[in-house]
């Protein structure tokens, strides 16, 4: 069942690599309302960067398609991030999640999913070849004392 979000934002952009920086900065701006630590914010930016780069490099290797990023603030100080494409899909998700596995050539390391797993609490990858891939990540942020309260 889908948890109710107290706030959310959705953005969609073409799969151009210049949008990688935009996506991670935009998500970080929205996540700021949870009052994250600098480390938490950097972890979130890194995970967004990996997921969006995957969509840009692998979902649409020879074309420009749409990448959708959704950020939701869920109960319990949980940030939920969804990165979705309608690209070519991943034939074997388990294999793609293995460290050092890549089909991306010499400029990719095959560590994207490993980093997403390491920096977020939960990672779900759903993919249908020919239809697209949806990556959902969740991270619970440490509750912080509000000044003056």
């Amino acid at each position: 069942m889908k948890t109710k979000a107290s706030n959310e934002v959705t953005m969609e952009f073409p799969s151009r690599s210049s949008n990688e920086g935009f996506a991670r900065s935009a998500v970080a701006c929205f996540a700021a309302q949870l009052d994250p630590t600098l480390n938490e914010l950097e972890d979130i930016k890194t995970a967004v960067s990996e997921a969006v780069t995957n969509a840009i490099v692998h979902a649409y290797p020879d074309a420009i398609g749409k990448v959708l990023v959704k950020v939701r603030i869920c109960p319990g100080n949980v940030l939920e991030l969804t990165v979705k494409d309608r690209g070519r899909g991943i034939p074997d998700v388990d294999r793609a999640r293995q460290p050092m596995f890549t089909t991306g050539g010499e400029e990719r390391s095959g560590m994207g999913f490993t980093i997403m797993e390491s920096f977020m609490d939960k990672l779900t990858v759903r993919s249908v070849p020919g239809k697209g891939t949806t990556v959902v990540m969740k991270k619970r942020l440490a509750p912080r004392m509000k000044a003056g309260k």
Partner: protein
Amino acid sequence: MEISAKSADRNLLLEFSGELDHHGARDALREVEMAVDAALPKKLVLDLSGVTFMDSSGIALILRAQQRMQLLDGSLLVCNVPAQAKRVLDAAGIGRLVTIR
């Protein structure tokens, strides 16, 4: 992403500044390869002190530089790694493959 090169006595120092992501990685990779091919160093040092953001694209670049130096029978050192980039390297276990100081 900007890279400045300093070379002396077959030591090559490459100082990185800016964001090292997929968008900048292809040009950065080419610049590193060109600098190494021109200097043919015994020792290559990648100074990451000016890197404001790095993702797994930086790992690919470091591993590529390592391979290049192995072909030259030389060594690679990665130094002055900022906290965020260090966590990325640690999550991928790159410290087992590359000398990081």
